């Protein structure tokens, strides 16, 4: 594991000197700082989005929404709600399995939060740099469903149980097209590393992967629909369908545990939208070629001027958060506009339409570079054809290996 | 060295033994399955440990990957069997599945 914020670590290393260097204390401290930052981002984003949802729903329904708390636009309404929820009694129904009932919300929260660990906010601004970052995010997000099921089952209520069951079926099903659609831009990028993917889309809106080929263009919308469903947002919110199941899996919850579910939900909304931003919409890049180049240059000159690099990253993070928030806004917009589907329609949509479509898109995306190369007689149009990349990889590894082996043999002979 | 090879192997051993005990004592069929998963995970921990600390390297990881995949397959089939058993006997108690006793 590598703590990526090398700058902070280096800064701290200089601060504490060599005294504790053997302990690696500076890394621990850097990790703690980042964790605090992340937790706050994780905790604050739901507050923002819940307020946003209330205002947007109000506007869509021709109301004002919250106006009282916090002055203009009632922007402190979420805080007020939070305080209220914290103050509420932590109820546990007698029919419930107390331990599972109480621990289920943490599961949801932790899963959503864990997704933020590998989500890059800007170039280098990521808690953990991993080659298979996207894979880890998808894996971690899939854990969220376990908390929902746990909550539904342990509540001792049939509404909750139904909600849990629905959620389980829905999530397990929608994970498949989600992963496949996410793989479409991956084919274009050739990497699972989210940082690398984001960096590739530098230099103008035409370099965003959504415009890379027709399949990625369609894949974006499919991905967005599937992501909406995997966040159990309307019109796919069958797990908490009020008209049928009262509150679904969280019927029996109240107070802070209830709010944990919603923190998890809004956090994961932002997470999937952030992923969409990175995979399709250029990540932290602005989409304006010259500005992107400017920011890129500023970042790479970080050694000379840390401040410039830092500022460039701040701008990148702002752009990224803006893109994610726009996605969340669309999801909110959808929720208050579209009616809810039936559970069988939800499953039909996934299994009969979205999975075949995504499979077709994935297939098309793999064939597209070959077609394009054949049509234009230019192999350099795309970054690299898959076969060429593979061959190059092998060639590189072989030479390295041969060199190292040669060196090793030489060393042995010398000894 | 706390986090050395032996520590990993110890964790693997604990997982393995717990899985075996789980298989031996749980009357619920699903519980037995969970025991199996634990046992497989114990083995996987060992593989990963050998991957890191011995020359086994990448092969061990690939073995672990295969183990995971096959464990998933095993779980699917075992679960189907359990469901069938439940459909036929209206219970999941494996002690009731003794029709082949001598």
């Amino acid at each position, binding site marked *: *594991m*590598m703590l990526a914020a090398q700058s902070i670590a280096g800064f701290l290393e200089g601060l504490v000197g060599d005294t504790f260097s*053997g302990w*690696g204390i500076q*890394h621990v401290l850097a990790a703690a700082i980042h964790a605090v930052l992340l937790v706050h981002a994780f905790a604050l984003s739901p507050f923002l989005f819940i307020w946003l949802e209330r205002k947007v729903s109000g506007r869509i329904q021709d109301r004002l929404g919250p106006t009282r708390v916090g002055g203009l636009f009632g922007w402190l309404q979420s805080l007020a709600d939070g305080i209220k929820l914290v103050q509420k009694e932590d109820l546990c129904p007698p029919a419930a399995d107390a*331990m*599972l009932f109480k621990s289920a919300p943490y599961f949801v929260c932790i899963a959503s939060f864990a997704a933020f660990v590998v989500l890059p906010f800007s170039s280098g601004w990521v808690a953990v740099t991993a*080659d298979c970052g996207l*894979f*880890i995010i*998808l894996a971690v997000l899939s*854990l969220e*469903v*376990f908390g929902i099921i*746990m909550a539904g*089952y342990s509540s*001792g209520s049939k509404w909750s149980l139904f909600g849990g069951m629905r959620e*389980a079926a829905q999530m397990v099903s929608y994970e498949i097209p989600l992963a496949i659609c996410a793989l479409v831009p991956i084919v274009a990028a050739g990497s699972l590393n989210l940082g690398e993917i984001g960096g590739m889309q530098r230099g103008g809106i035409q370099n965003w992967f959504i415009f890379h080929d027709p399949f990625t263009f369609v894949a974006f919308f499919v991905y967005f629909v599937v992501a909406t469903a995997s966040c159990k947002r309307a019109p796919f919110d069958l797990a908490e369908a009020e008209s049928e199941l009262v509150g679904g899996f969280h019927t029996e919850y109240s107070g802070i545990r209830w709010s944990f579910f919603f923190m998890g939900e809004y956090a994961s909304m932002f997470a999937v939208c952030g992923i969409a931003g990175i995979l399709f919409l250029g990540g932290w890049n602005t989409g304006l070629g010259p500005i992107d180049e400017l920011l890129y240059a500023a970042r790479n000159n970080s050694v000379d001027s840390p401040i410039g690099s830092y500022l460039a990253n701040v701008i990148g993070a702002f752009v990224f958060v803006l893109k994610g928030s726009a996605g969340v806004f669309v999801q909110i917009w959808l929720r208050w506009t579209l009616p809810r589907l039936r559970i069988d329609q939800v499953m039909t949509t996934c299994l009969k339409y979205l999975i075949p479509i995504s499979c077709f898109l994935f297939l098309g995306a793999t064939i597209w570079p070959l077609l394009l190369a054949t049509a234009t007689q230019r192999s350099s149009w795309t970054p690299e054809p898959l076969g060429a990349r593979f061959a190059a990889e*092998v060639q590189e*590894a072989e030479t390295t*290996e041969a060199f190292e082996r040669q060196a090793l043999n030489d060393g042995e002979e010398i000894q | 060295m*706390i*986090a050395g*090879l032996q520590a990993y*192997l*110890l*964790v693997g051993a604990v*997982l*393995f033994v*717990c899985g*075996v005990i*789980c298989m*031996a*004592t*749980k009357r*619920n069929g*699903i*519980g037995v399955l969970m025991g199996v*998963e634990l046992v497989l*995970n114990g083995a996987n*921990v060992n593989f*990963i440990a050998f*991957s*890191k600390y011995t020359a086994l390297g*990448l092969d061990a*990881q*690939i073995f*672990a*990957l295969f183990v*995971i995949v096959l464990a*998933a*397959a*095993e*779980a*699917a*089939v075992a*679960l*189907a069997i359990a*469901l069938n058993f*439940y459909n036929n006997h209206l219970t999941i108690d494996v002690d009731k599945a003794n029709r082949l006793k001598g």
Partner: protein
Amino acid sequence: MNDSNLLGGQLLFAIFALATCLSAVAVVVSQTVVRMAFWLVISLGSTAALFFLADADFIGAAQLIIYVGGTLILLVFGVMLTASSPYLKIKSSPGETIIGGLLGLLFMFAVFSSLQGVEWPAPPTGDSAVTAGSPEGNTLRPLGLALLGARPDLDLHDGDTLSTGYLLPFEIVSVHLLVVLIGAAYLARAKRKSAAPAEGLES
């Protein structure tokens, strides 16, 4: 793992190893199947964390998505589908539990003593072959190449054209998975044996 990260690494290992072991014990001790599943999730998730710590990112992620996200949800499904009553408990007899426990302890002792008795080889100095040419934990590419049949770390030298990769096992496992999925779907299909004859009798 760098020496400079020993503290964090060891600390994290201790935390997750403890979580793994305790949760495993909790799985054994729990009486309710759902609680067992709960503890199992924690145990397997912690194992995944251990994998991350052991520079096996991809395996860890696979463990999470396949085991925790897939297999265990399947198991919980099974629990729900086979539960004849809420929070079903099928208790074993105390004698069996005791015998099982004792046997487990004996087994543990046997494994532990053998662990102690073996002289384990010293870890290779420097970067292991696994992480050669890539940052630590980033075994994705070598794994992918190996599954495609190429082992740049082992073969394609000295005129050896025999691949030591895992293309064939990979394909076999893929087909095996497909077969198992179909077979499981067939096996789990509801047959409704008892309903059909009753209707026949009525009509």
